[in-house]
């Protein structure tokens, strides 16, 4: 996510579009990115630290962006269940 003090013109454009579509009451919109990483090896603290390192050096630009790393269980969905 862009840091709070960094102007987010894309988020602002989205916010301005919402009332035109009848969605009122949204005071602010901030737009960010989400990366889903699937690890080949079992997850342990060292692996999570590697992911944080990835985020710090490459996935995020910490000059203007903050990031959080969250562990989620993979959801296996059979193709016919996707809808």
């Amino acid at each position, binding site marked *: 996510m862009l840091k709070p003090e*960094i102007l987010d*013109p894309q988020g602002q454009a989205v916010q301005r579009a919402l009332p035109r579509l009848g969605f009122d009451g949204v005071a602010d919109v901030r737009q960010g990115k989400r990366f889903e990483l699937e690890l080949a090896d079992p997850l342990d603290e060292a692996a999570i630290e590697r992911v944080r390192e990835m985020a710090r050096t*490459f996935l995020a*630009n910490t000059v*203007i962006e903050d990031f959080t790393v969250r562990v989620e269980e993979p959801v296996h969905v059979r193709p016919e269940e996707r809808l």
Partner: protein
Amino acid sequence: MTTRVGVVTFPGSLDDGDARRAVKLAGAEPVALWHGDKDLHQVDAVILPGGFSYGDYLRCGAIARFSPVMETIIEGARAGLPVLGICNGFQVLCESHLLPGALTRNDHLHFICRDQRLRVESTATAWTRAFADGQEITVPLKNGEGGYVADERTLDELEAEGRVVFRYLDANPNGSRRDIAGITNPQGNVVGLMPHPEHAVESLTGPGTDGLGFFTSVVGVVGELVAR
């Protein structure tokens, strides 16, 4: 001895050809450098040109920053090699942390393409010595993510140390903090700016020849280094 100025081509670079041409018009020898080749081929200075390196994927300049050629350029820049980043090249320099701050989406969200007036705020860099302090120049500007941002402390530091090299005149085209169009590192060998001096080196194809000074500046600097 002719000054050799390397121009890097990344996948998605657009203005490498114009940059090489500008180098030639300034009386130096352009040397094409390839993103996948670590070797700088004994160049005396390097230009990172405009364009959309690696499709601007992830963030502008974020992937280019980790290309093999950049490893050598970052090392060289820290040792005093003159490096000029134009537009996408400026973004690469910020992503490399050779220059502070970052370039973000234009505040009005439009891609902008126009002839832009700038004021040269510092002639104490390898790339601006041919100009006069306070000189006003016109060069093309064309980008979608040219808003220069940095925290207040960094901006104050840049101002105090005379490291704001160019400022936009007339209307601020992209929401850049303090109208900053270009900056330099403390040593003055690394310069980045959003506008495109390489498109203003011949009156036939540009708004004038104001951009030529960037390229003649570095020829002089390198000449001095060699003579020393």
